């Protein structure tokens, strides 16, 4: 299958290895990956902060970037981020329609129908749970809010993780509690966000996992940023990176590995 990869603005700019891992994984599973060059952002941060008018041209850019891919034989758009997929499914057409851009809304809705979060694409579209990965680490999984409650990914990521050779999966207590990221919430309500993060980290650390994984790089940057600040030694690694790892090639460690203070 020919698959277009939407890296998302955050992954592309800050943690490119997550997009790389997604591409490596899909190619290893025998699919052709294209990366439309005009892509930038889904518009979620603008919408969720109140800048819905300003989100419209971003949505238009997204549609421009990916509409061409669909006409050149791409059957699915895969995204290593639950919240961006949720925004594409639930917000893009709505903000366009609110702005009176009905053609754009229709195009965005059509694109959304072909857009999949990584774990849903693997399990539901490709029908695989064992992707042939090898990852000899103790791992706990944090179900991010938008994956859990907007996309209803359910236990798909866990099915994928359970099939990874060498991986020890440990259950995260109070897993369904938000980590406190919430986009600009982490900045506008930094104190409350930090309080939520502290409890999430306490639960992560209680598992004695080496790695905390999830399907959203943004939440992982938040949890990882906190764990790194505490010099905890537990690092955050995106689900795609774990699934891309094999005996032959372990994906490079994320930049959120514990920092050494200067």
């Amino acid at each position, binding site marked *: 299958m020919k698959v277009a990869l939407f*890296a998302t*603005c955050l*992954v*592309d*700019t*800050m*943690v*490119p290895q997550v*997009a*790389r891992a997604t*591409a490596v994984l899909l190619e290893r599973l025998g699919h052709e990956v294209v*990366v439309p060059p*005009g*892509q*930038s952002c889904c*518009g979620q941060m*603008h*919408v*969720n*902060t*109140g*800048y*819905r*008018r*300003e989100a419209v*041209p*971003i949505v238009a*850019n997204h549609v421009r970037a990916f509409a061409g891919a669909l006409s050149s034989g791409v059957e699915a758009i895969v995204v290593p981020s639950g919240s961006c997929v949720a925004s594409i499914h639930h917000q893009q057409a709505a903000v366009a329609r609110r702005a009176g851009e009905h053609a754009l809304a229709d195009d965005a809705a059509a694109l959304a129908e072909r857009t999949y979060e990584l774990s849903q694409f693997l399990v539901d579209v490709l029908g695989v749970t064992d992707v042939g990965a090898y990852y000899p680490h103790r791992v706990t999984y944090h179900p991010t*809010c938008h994956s859990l*409650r907007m996309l209803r990914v359910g236990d798909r990521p866990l099915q994928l993780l359970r099939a990874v050779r060498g991986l020890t999966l440990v259950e995260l207590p109070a897993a*369904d*509690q*938000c980590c*406190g990221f*919430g*986009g*600009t*919430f*982490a*900045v*506008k*309500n*930094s*104190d*409350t966000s*930090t*309080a*939520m*993060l502290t409890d999430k980290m306490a639960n992560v650390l209680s598992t004695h996992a080496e790695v905390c994984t999830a399907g959203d790089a943004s939440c992982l940057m*938040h949890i*990882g*940023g*906190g764990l*790194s*600040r505490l010099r905890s030694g537990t690092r955050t690694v995106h689900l795609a990176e774990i699934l891309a790892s094999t005996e032959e090639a372990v994906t490079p460690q*994320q*930049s*959120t*590995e514990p*920092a050494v203070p200067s």
Partner: protein
Amino acid sequence: MTAVFLGIPTAPRGVGHLRGEESFPDAARGALRNGQLRANLGHATSTIRGKRAHVVGELTDWAQLREAGRAIKAATMARLDEHLIALEEQVTARGGTVHWARDANEANEIVTRLVRATGTTEVVKVKSMATQEIGLNEALEAAGIAAHETDLAELIVQLGDDKPSHILVPAIHKNRAEIREIFLRTMPGVDPGLSDDPRKLAMAARAHLRERFLRARVAISGANFAVAETGTLAVVESEGNGRMCLTLPQTLITVMGIEKVVPTWRDLEVYLQLLPRSSTGERMNPYTSLWAGVTPGDGPQEFHLVLLDNGRTAVLADEVGREALHCIRCSACLNVCPVYERTGGHAYGSVYPGPIGAVLSPQLTGVEDNASLPYASSLCGACYDVCPVAIDIPSILVHLRGEHVEAQTRTTPEAAAFRALSRAMSSPRLWRLAQRAAGLGRFLARGKPTMPNALPFPASTWTRSRDLPTPPAETFTQAWAREHGG
């Protein structure tokens, strides 16, 4: 269409309890440092979450009930005027008197006048959000009328000269030891050996209020539901204080938000299943009182119903936000909210805290009077999942953020930044430049894997408590294009 455009006023300033003195982030900062508050809230909300999940799980038709609960409210709002007129007719036909109040001031005046007409200077009150909202107790006090709260949690708040912090359990922020201390300090004639056993504390409240119930001539209540086709009012409670107020005094005054009406008697079969399981996590609350007008020889012989607007019609004018009027005040959304659990209710500055408060208060007052509340959420969606009438709170929060942004007449630094980012993100060429600029941030890290902690605002609000990874030299899309000859 907006309320402003239609000339529909919001709840007036200077009366009632819908606006806080501080913004949410400022109020929250203090609350987060209160370890006792955090412990009390964590304990109480986790207890109730477990109970709710258990009794909701018992019902095989919860999803159907929830959808019916949503649909009935939506249908009610679509014909709200007709249902209110029907309610008025029925209540009047059964011996009650209906009053209409445009806002808090008018409702307070009506109630004060009605109490004065009875010649009494004290009233007993059943816990009611509407009367909290309009500041009725303060208005009565100013008129020389003492209002005695009779719900245990309201009593704790009143005796402790405190503010309510939860819709269902206004004293949720107090633990048993603190409640014992309040009772010992403020209850006349209380047993000095009173323990902090909840049962003993409840007994102390019983003894304290018993005589007041028996001598009360006027009671003031809210209403959970009012049935238009029959004129039946409903009050859902646990302790029996509601029954005391609704049954013993000669005069009953019920203050009810106009959105509490439901069209038919059958609608109660839905809400009396949804509400108790969502609120106290019980299959049914101990007492529900239902009455229509006046019944000779049974209960109050004079009944007044005050129908309150106070901004509700302004909420109704917003096609997205009006869903907030569907709320049945169960507080399930408070109990699951990770923000509420950590900050408590006072930080919201309104009698309606938590997720529902964050969408209701700003709409009742106008968004600019409560502009920080729509942002007091990480949009985790837990509130929507548990809402028994399926109010899409996260979507309304996002909508109100948009209303706030669009209400600004001057360009804020934030707006300038978001507009610049929007321009960049809508143009591949500008976006690559912006990404390259962000990548330059790596030089600040001087080869370290994370950025320095001391960054300028607003990055500082992130780095105060979390490390920020150093951006890579090359983005994924750049690298891919380089490798694939793009």
